[in-house]
């Protein structure tokens, strides 16, 4: 349905997006995962025709939309990262305004507004001003405003940043409903791995403006199939132990956690004994060891050497 081909965008000599290619099929829910500043928002702006790339192309059903942005705009609903609403107007008035922009009016618009308010769980508070809403409620109306014209594709740019768990669950449920029940194609960007894991069937991982990995959750985890993740709890922190573990041949990554260390290491029969012996040499007691299947966070750590929230 949508293809992005070798996108490149440079701002004042700084490359924000570099050689980014990806695709989305109709009805798919695709995740764009990456830390802040990875280039996710710039990529979204290019796809939604708000920014023109320095190189590359965006195609909708095989037709380039760079010269004809109206082609993609009429099937697209964009939920921006910022709260793009009039704070001085009520939720209802905001939705009426954005519906008016899409030439909607009268009874159909009224029904659509009530349906969307119901969907985001704010029907009973529709007359209240946006500025009186909590951050989560504002984000829910921010989503509703992008759905008034029944878009075939919805792009969501970090829709759950800085909100309460209740609103977050509501938003995740809304996205699920859109994709599963209504067949809307969703591009969901976030730096919260668990959200992308829950919602998306395919994931692109971005860092420093480039796509560094892509595939289904299983395919991505398979990157670390020859590796184990060890969570160690230690009685005290030790810099020297960390350094020595990092120097052990099977260990690929060492990350300090709140109560110990997280290791990503190649599967080896004597891995545990090596770790225990090293800890003993440094007189550090291991209070627990947990071996787990690699998560997407581990994949990101493996690929970039840092966590998503670094």
């Amino acid at each position: 349905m949508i293809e992005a081909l070798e996108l490149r965008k440079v701002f004042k000599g700084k490359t924000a997006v570099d050689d980014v290619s990806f695709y989305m099929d109709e009805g798919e829910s695709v995740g764009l995962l990456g830390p802040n500043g990875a280039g996710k928002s710039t990529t979204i702006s290019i796809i939604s025709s708000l920014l023109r790339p320095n190189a590359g192309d965006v195609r909708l059903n095989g037709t380039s939309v760079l010269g004809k942005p109206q082609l993609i705009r009429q099937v697209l609903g964009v939920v921006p990262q910022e709260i793009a609403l009039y704070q001085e107007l009520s939720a209802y008035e905001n939705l009426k305004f954005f519906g008016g922009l899409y030439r909607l009016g009268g009874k159909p618009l009224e029904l659509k507004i009530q349906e969307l308010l119901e969907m985001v769980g704010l029907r009973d508070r529709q007359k209240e001003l946006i500025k009186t809403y909590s951050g989560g409620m504002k984000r829910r109306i921010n989503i509703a405003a992008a759905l008034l014209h029944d878009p075939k594709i919805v792009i969501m740019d970090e829709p759950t940043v800085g909100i309460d768990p209740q609103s977050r669950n509501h938003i995740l449920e809304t996205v699920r409903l859109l994709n599963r029940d209504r067949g809307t194609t969703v591009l969901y960007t976030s730096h919260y791995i668990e959200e992308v894991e829950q919602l998306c069937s395919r994931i692109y991982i971005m860092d420093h403006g480039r796509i560094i990995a892509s595939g289904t959750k299983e395919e991505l985890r398979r990157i670390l199939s020859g590796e184990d993740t060890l969570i160690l709890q230690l009685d005290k922190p030790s810099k020297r132990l960390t350094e020595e573990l990092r120097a052990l041949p099977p260990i690929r990554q060492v990350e300090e956690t709140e109560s110990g260390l997280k290791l990503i290491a190649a599967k080896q029969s004597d891995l545990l004994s090596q770790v225990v012996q090293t800890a003993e040499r440094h007189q550090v007691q291991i209070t627990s060891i947990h071996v787990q299947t690699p998560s997407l966070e581990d994949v990101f750590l493996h690929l970039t050497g840092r966590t998503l929230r670094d």
Partner: protein
Amino acid sequence: MNPIFLAQWMKEKRSPIMVLAFCGLSILATLLFGFGMDNRIKIGVFPGPGVEASVAKQWIEHLNEGDAIEFFLQDEEGARSDVRGSRADAAVQVMQNEYRLIASTQNPNVRLVEHHLRAVFQEELQLRAAAAYAADERGLREEVQRYLEQPPMAVEMRTLDGSELVRYDMGLQLLFTFTLFLAAFTVGFKLNAITMEKAAGIWSRMILSPVRKSEMYLGHLFYSMLIGFIQVLVVFLLFRFGIGFDMGDHFGMLILVAALYILAITAFCMLLAGIVRTPEQFNMVFPSLVPVMPILSGGYMPPGTITNPILLGISEILPLKHALDALTGIAIYDKSWLDILPSIAKLCIIAVICMGIGINLMERRRA
């Protein structure tokens, strides 16, 4: 365009305080500074060395026979200090048969005072000379007085272009200045909604909708212009029909010129919004820049006070100067459309150039 215009109106209904405050300020400022203002030039008079105060008083009586300038007795030190501190245009030292004009700058008021002094002294001294040869000095003066009250021919004073010499109404000029100046604030802050919407992401949402870019700009421009125009109209109507200000016989022309000024100032604000990067920058730069406009445009001073060619040059690019020229021309000098054509043309040129550059800069920034 309609949804954008209506959204701005709905926001306005929720918090109309800014427009109401600027309307109130226009009225208050004009009432404070312009209404009932004594427009006469005040000149201190003091006796020269060896001259009695009674002689100075006699001269003051003669000098005050006209009504444009008010002469009053003052001590020498105070009069000189007022001139030095620019609190007075000039002071006059009177002797028995002559005077000395003391001024620190040469402005139109000083020239007017000088002209009046020369005329009064000449007339009085000629009378005195004639009286010296007459047997009945008192009778001669009374005869001359009777003669002057019913002269065989009347001399009518006219300006260089032949029009009637009109007494300048500074109160009216201040009304125009305050109203247009405060309307500029309203227009600017309303137009800043564009940069605010860009920062909030609302502008991007509008771009993605079927609404055309031209409609987006027009919605905001029309709204800002309409609010600014209504503000000016309300103040003008109040002063003309409520308070009874004499605004001449062409009120309709005044309204049309005000509308043209609003167009020019909207374009001027658009240029500024195009130059700055954020709404916060606009809110910082705009209120610092706008108060300079009436000063450079000479809005607070009688015409001809600003003579510096650099300041006069700068004022040429300000819409307020041309609007004031046109409005005072219509209201005070009864000028026709043809007479105010240069001012109107300049307002139109400013509007076209500023709007073109302003929108261009805004679009370039987005790209």
